[in-house]
């Protein structure tokens, strides 16, 4: 019996030793692996979901409009803005907006049964609103290491199996779909930045104020994430389907999380 064990131990040691060398081994073979059969072994992974796109004509036009708006308006404005304000100030503005959207994240985490996350979101809100000076800083993350859990109503619907529906490119805001676009309405009741008079206090009350606040948030965001869109755009052969696909893949992932 002992002999068997010893033999096994030797085998184990010997063979695991070999395998650990695998990566450093000198390259000996140089065989082209262009066999189609190899490609077939990837086919199940590489299946791309067809996106329902009856509005592609409009979407294409809106994508070009947004792209132009980025180059000729949003980018120059955000560059000027970032020259005026130090990055730490802009980061605080970003934190402030993120903090104010807490009710959206809180409610949608609960709606998806993610109670622990909504509790963490509450902790973040309390910490950042008090110690973080009305949300200008994010000590919840930097000091207490509590991560944010972004959820919106579009994700909640997706969580319960609602599909995206037709893809829609929104003016300036970019790619979306019917589910996510329609979800902006219920979510608007959960923020302090909205376009209507409410029975409770909100930061903005009219469409003009709403657009002003949103534009400020957007310009601030672009100033902090400069080049992100440009770098992404570089890899597009055809911009519209490229951005559409990235959006839908990203949303699918967020819904699964």
């Amino acid at each position, binding site marked *: 019996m002992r002999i068997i064990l010893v033999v096994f131990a030797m085998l184990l040691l010997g063979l695991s030793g070999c395998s650990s060398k695998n990566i450093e081994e000198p390259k000996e073979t140089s065989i082209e692996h*262009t066999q189609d059969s190899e490609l077939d072994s990837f086919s199940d992974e590489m299946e791309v979901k067809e996106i329902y796109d009856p509005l592609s004509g409009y979407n294409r036009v809106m994508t070009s409009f947004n792209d132009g708006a980025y180059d000729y308006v949003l980018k120059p404005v955000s560059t000027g803005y970032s020259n005026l304000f130090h990055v730490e100030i802009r980061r605080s503005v970003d934190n402030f907006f993120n903090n104010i959207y807490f009710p959206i994240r809180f409610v949608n985490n609960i709606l998806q049964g993610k109670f622990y996350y909504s509790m963490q979101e509450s902790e973040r809100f309390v910490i950042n609103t008090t110690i973080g000076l009305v949300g200008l800083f994010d000590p919840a993350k930097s000091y207490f290491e509590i991560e944010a859990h972004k959820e919106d109503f579009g994700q909640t619907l997706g969580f319960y199996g609602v599909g995206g529906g037709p893809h829609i490119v929104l003016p300036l805001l970019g790619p979306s779909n019917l589910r996510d676009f329609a979800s902006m309405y219920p979510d608007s009741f959960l923020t302090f930045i909205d376009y209507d008079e409410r029975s409770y206090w909100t930061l903005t009350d009219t469409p003009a104020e709403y657009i002003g606040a949103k534009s400020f948030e957007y310009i601030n965001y672009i100033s902090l994430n400069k080049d992100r869109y440009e770098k992404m755009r570089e890899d597009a052969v055809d911009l519209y389907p490229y951005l559409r696909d990235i959006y839908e893949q990203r949303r699918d992932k967020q819904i699964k999380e």
Partner: protein
Amino acid sequence: MRSIYKVFFLLLGMFFFTQGLIADEQTELKKHFLSKIDEVILIVEDKKLLKDERNANIVKTLTPMFDFKLMAKLSLGNRWKELSQADKDKFVELYVHRMKQSYSSKIDAYKDEKVEVKEIQQPKEDRIALITDLISKQDKLEIVYKFHKPKKQLESKDNWLVYDVEILGVSILKTDIAQFKEFLQTKTITALMDALSKQS
């Protein structure tokens, strides 16, 4: 009775042996991947290098880890098989060039970030996915590197090769598959190759 023990220990031994091999392969790949990342960080932080020189060095370091050729083929899906050999070669060349360009342009944005492997998945014997976080001061970006192990090792390539990268759930390869497919519905492969060559 003894023979039952023998069989039992044999099976037990086999089990631990195979488990050991799998775990070993994963940790080796992780180690190798992180050492490559460290090499890239050293190049990025080397202030003496000019930008072009630096990017060329980064691409040179990473090329043995990426299966750009396979990515090129997969990006065309079934259309690949219909291409003539000359078109195949030309397409691969253009695609690989574009990939390298794209990678080195993205690495420019790299500043004081850290890479952590948070999970390793092995859905098949010859596939390993390293799920990593790119951690900066403000953000955490989930990037998945998908590796495959070719049946026969390729010249000047590693054992395990990256065939897809997923950034925040967006697969580079799938995005290309989708956009090329749509492009080819109305245009020819020559037009696609023209578009690719204009990009780089």
